């Protein structure tokens, strides 16, 4: 194969036309080292564009949660880490169910951001969200989290509508040894985790696993028990070829429910998930890289069915409430007919099975001032659920084609353009793009002007949800069966759209070991998808007024605001991170059809959010950290109005050497150390002071 340099030499030779005294080059760059070798890009961040970039070159605002921050934060789940990213709002929906959203406007199933683990999407088409408790992942195995703030659809596709989160796990080749950890504390927590990394022949691998268990809150008993095992391996047959394989399984249960009432009953939800992922990368030239990825995600959620007695009693009480009296024999017959006409009732909606298959080919190249990446992807999602998808199993194929071009047209200026085209087998298309003009006046700062339009194709759930209850005929009372149309599928559902204008400024202060990141934005979401209630003819539905909910593109809102992130290592032993976001959200009239206009009690986005992390190492084996979080009041969809709160977490970790290659660490974490107890998302989901002690043995 002829190299780019050699090709260019030959090409020039034919074009020069310099007469006999200037002949074609006799030597070529294929034979000797080029100065390009000294200017080689060494890969760094890739989440915003898929191109390796420094933060000063990125067309989007990116926050990096590093390994040190993960340790110092004392966070016990990934959404808690996102509190350290400006513009994100994280919340506990219950004791063991977590959520995070960028720029608010969310219910308990945030659905407008992509979450990936090493590039593998873990977004669930069945629930239109991410289930953080079945990822088969331990915080210990995370190297860093790259968070793109703002729509990243042009790079990652529909799910990255408001942003994307890429969780990068530790590369097995970079580790040797492992850890055992045991954690005990509030909610009767009993966690055990382990991880081991080593080499086997030409493979580097990590095997991790764990058991987590707690009793949840006293009020709801929303406990958790899960076991997981994950494998990550990399194989490097040659210098230019690398193969990564990852697989994992996560099984267990948690209790689900809505703490909007003090007497809500929580129900056990079993989960069984597994994934398999393979990635092949080939560096085929001085500037080119080819990457092929494929993965499969599986999740099965089971909630218990109501017993026959439960159905019998519920129907009996419903009939009684409507003034209809039945004797035992009549109610038995009625219950039998009800169970024949309906799927057997379940205690909660988080029930069903979903598969996702994805394959993608990506090529990145560079030519002088141009760097580009392009690729094709195919995804197949399927879902089945007795309660969410009563019209039957659903599936969807999606094709995507994407490209991102970075053109440094002048030494201090560059333009970055990314585009994504998605085609769904449901006969829907989406086209998204982002343009950014980046000015780098020096090596340490950049000013960015960005404009993007992104479209999000509706998820399987949004498009196909169908829930109906059929009540059998009651002789002498009803002429035929009664229908309670709860939610219906909407084949006409279209993509929702966000138009973003932004100004970004990023600056590093090398002498101060500090970074400053500013983002000013205006985001207008239009054709937003949410529930709309279509009126039904009188007598055809049991609701008053008769109606059926569907997902509709009827909603819009606009966010304006600013975000700032400042971090500094003041000394080798003391650092801080400060985040603040101001978000002003204007919501257009939220007309829900037959259910009327939704009256908002507050903004659907917290107007102010802030966080501060202080980390101090007074002596080499002692780490102290303090985290303070503030979130303004907000009117969550489903969750309702929540007051603002402040929370302070503390962590102290001490290490002891227990051998030449091993150390023991004891870490005490206190969350909400200074109180008071506050409500998160739901009125009765209370976050009190929580304490955990973790012992960890690490060996090399």
């Amino acid at each position, binding site marked *: 194969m002829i190299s780019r340099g050699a090709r260019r030499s030959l090409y020039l030779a034919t074009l020069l036309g*310099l*007469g006999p005294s200037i002949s074609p080059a006799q*030597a070529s760059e294929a034979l000797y080292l080029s100065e390009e070798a000294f200017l080689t890009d060494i890969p760094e961040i890739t989440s915003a564009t898929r191109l390796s970039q420094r933060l000063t070159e990125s067309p989007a605002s990116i926050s990096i949660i590093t390994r040190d921050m993960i340790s110092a934060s004392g966070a016990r789940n990934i959404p808690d880490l996102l509190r350290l990213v400006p513009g994100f709002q994280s919340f506990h929906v219950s004791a063991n169910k977590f959520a995070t959203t960028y720029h608010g406007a969310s219910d308990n199933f945030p659905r407008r951001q992509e979450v990936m683990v090493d590039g593998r999407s873990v977004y669930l088409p069945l629930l239109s969200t991410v289930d953080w408790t079945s990822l088969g992942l331990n915080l210990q195995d995370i190297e860093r989290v790259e968070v793109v703030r703002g729509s990243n659809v042009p790079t990652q596709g529909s799910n990255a509508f408001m942003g994307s989160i890429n969780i990068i796990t530790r590369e097995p080749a970079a580790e040797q040894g492992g850890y055992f950890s045991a954690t005990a504390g509030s909610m009767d927590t009993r966690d055990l985790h382990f991880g081991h990394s080593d080499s086997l022949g030409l493979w580097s691998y990590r095997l991790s696993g764990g058991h987590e268990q707690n009793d949840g809150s006293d009020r709801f008993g929303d406990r958790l028990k899960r076991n997981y095992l994950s494998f990550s391996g990399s194989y490097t047959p*040659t210098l230019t070829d690398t193969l990564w394989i990852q697989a994992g399984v996560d099984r267990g249960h948690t209790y689900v429910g809505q703490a909007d009432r003090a007497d809500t009953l929580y129900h056990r939800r079993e989960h069984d998930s597994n994934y398999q992922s393979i990635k092949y990368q080939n560096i085929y030239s001085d500037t080119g890289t080819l990457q092929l990825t494929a993965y499969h995600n599986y999740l099965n959620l089971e909630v218990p069915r109501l017993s026959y007695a439960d159905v019998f009693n519920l129907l009996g009480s419903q009939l009684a409430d409507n003034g209809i009296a039945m004797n035992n024999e009549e109610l038995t017959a009625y219950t039998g007919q009800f169970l024949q006409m309906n799927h057997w009732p379940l205690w909660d909606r988080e029930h069903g099975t979903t598969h996702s298959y994805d394959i993608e080919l990506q090529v990145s190249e560079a030519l002088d001032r141009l760097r580009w990446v392009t690729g094709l992807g195919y995804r197949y999602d399927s879902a089945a659920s007795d309660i969410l998808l009563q019209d039957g199993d659903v599936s969807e194929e999606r094709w995507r084609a994407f490209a991102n071009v970075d053109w440094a047209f002048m030494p201090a200026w560059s333009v970055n353009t990314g585009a994504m085209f998605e085609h769904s087998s449901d006969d829907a298309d989406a086209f998204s793009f982002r343009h950014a003009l980046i000015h780098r006046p020096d090596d340490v700062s950049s000013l960015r002007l960005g404009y993007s339009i992104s479209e999000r194709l509706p998820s399987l759930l949004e498009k196909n949800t169908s829930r109906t209850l059929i009540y059998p005929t009651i002789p002498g009372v009803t002429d035929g069966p009664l229908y309670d149309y709860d939610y219906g599928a909407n084949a006409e559902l279209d993509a929702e759209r966000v138009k973003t204008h932004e100004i970004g400024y990023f600056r590093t202060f090398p002498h101060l070991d500090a970074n400053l990141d500013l983002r000013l934005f205006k985001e207008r979401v239009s054709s937003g998808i949410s529930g709309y209630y279509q009126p039904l003819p009188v007598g055809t539905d049991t609701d008053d007024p008769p109606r059926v909910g569907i997902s509709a593109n009827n909603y819009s809102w606009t966010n304006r605001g600013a975000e700032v992130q400042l971090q500094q*290592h003041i000394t*080798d032993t003391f650092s801080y991170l400060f985040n603040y976001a101001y978000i002003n959200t204007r919501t257009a009239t939220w007309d829900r059809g037959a259910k009327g206009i939704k009256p908002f009690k507050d903004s659907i986005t917290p107007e102010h959010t802030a966080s501060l992390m202080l980390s101090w190492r007074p002596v080499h084996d002692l780490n102290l950290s303090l985290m303070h979080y503030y979130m303004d009041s907000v009117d969550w969809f489903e969750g309702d109005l929540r007051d603002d709160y402040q929370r302070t977490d503390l962590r102290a970790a001490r290490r002891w050497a227990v051998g030449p290659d091993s150390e023991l660490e004891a870490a005490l974490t206190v969350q909400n150390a200074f109180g008071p107890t506050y409500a998160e998302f739901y009125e009765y989901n209370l976050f009190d002071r929580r304490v955990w002690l973790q012992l960890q043995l690490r060996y090399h």
Partner: protein
Amino acid sequence: MQGLDRITRLITRRLLPGLLGCLLSSSATAEQALLVLSDFSPSYNQVRDAVLETAQQPPLVTTLDQLTPADSQRATILAVGSRACEQMLNHYHPDTRLICSFLPSSTFAQLKQKLLPEQAQPQVSAIFIDQPLLRQIRLARLVKPNARILGSALGSNSRLLRDELEAGSRKAGLELQLAYLTTQDNPVEQLTPVIRNSDLFLVIPDSSVFNRAISKWLLYLSLRHQVPVIGFSENYTNAGAAASVHSSATQIGQQAGEWLSRLQAGGPLPPPSYPAYFDISINPVAARTLKLKLASGEALEQALLRLEAED
């Protein structure tokens, strides 16, 4: 249109500067030097800009695709980049003083040997893009003063540097451990024993594909074995090397401009040289991870300059 462009280019780049040079220079007898860029890529342009800013009599600027046969007979030519050097050596005129700049030292040696094998004392010199190995080894020593063993890896382009690397290591009091890799080798298998047994690892630049491919594994394995990596570019430092010594295109252009001024003042052609100006970048995150106490880049640079002054 193309013809018009060509005429415009000829007027603005050749005739006008030449005319102005004749009018403004009292010593109009000194012919303007010619600066030949390999192409208009950003790095070459930075070299050009620095030369134009530094040289007392700015040279004429051209690129390979605009060269005329007469250009190769100029009295003084500054070639920027390997391809410009290759072309100028290929058509070297014995009366020309040729300076090749912004190219690797090994490439210059190979090109000169191949294209001017018969010339006894050609007036050809160079300013390399790479740093002297001893400078890199000394930086390694400054990063970890108590280091005993220096690890490194050589590819097919850098294999020739083995003797120089060994000599430099000896001079700095370090024992050298080497791995030899081709693109068909498993990097983890080849690098692991060397990194495991080293206190420091020095990255020697090879081909771009080699540099890109090896960097990831090198940095991973150095983390795994807690061995600081000394890189050769700011990119390497940003990606995870503890420190790197490197010269920017502007610094090399500045040096080249100073050489042109000396030649124009009647001075002799300096011998092929490594960059006189350089920077040291350090990665505070890597330093913290590897528990290194590193001085600032400027302090390390001053320390290196002091050591070089003692030679």
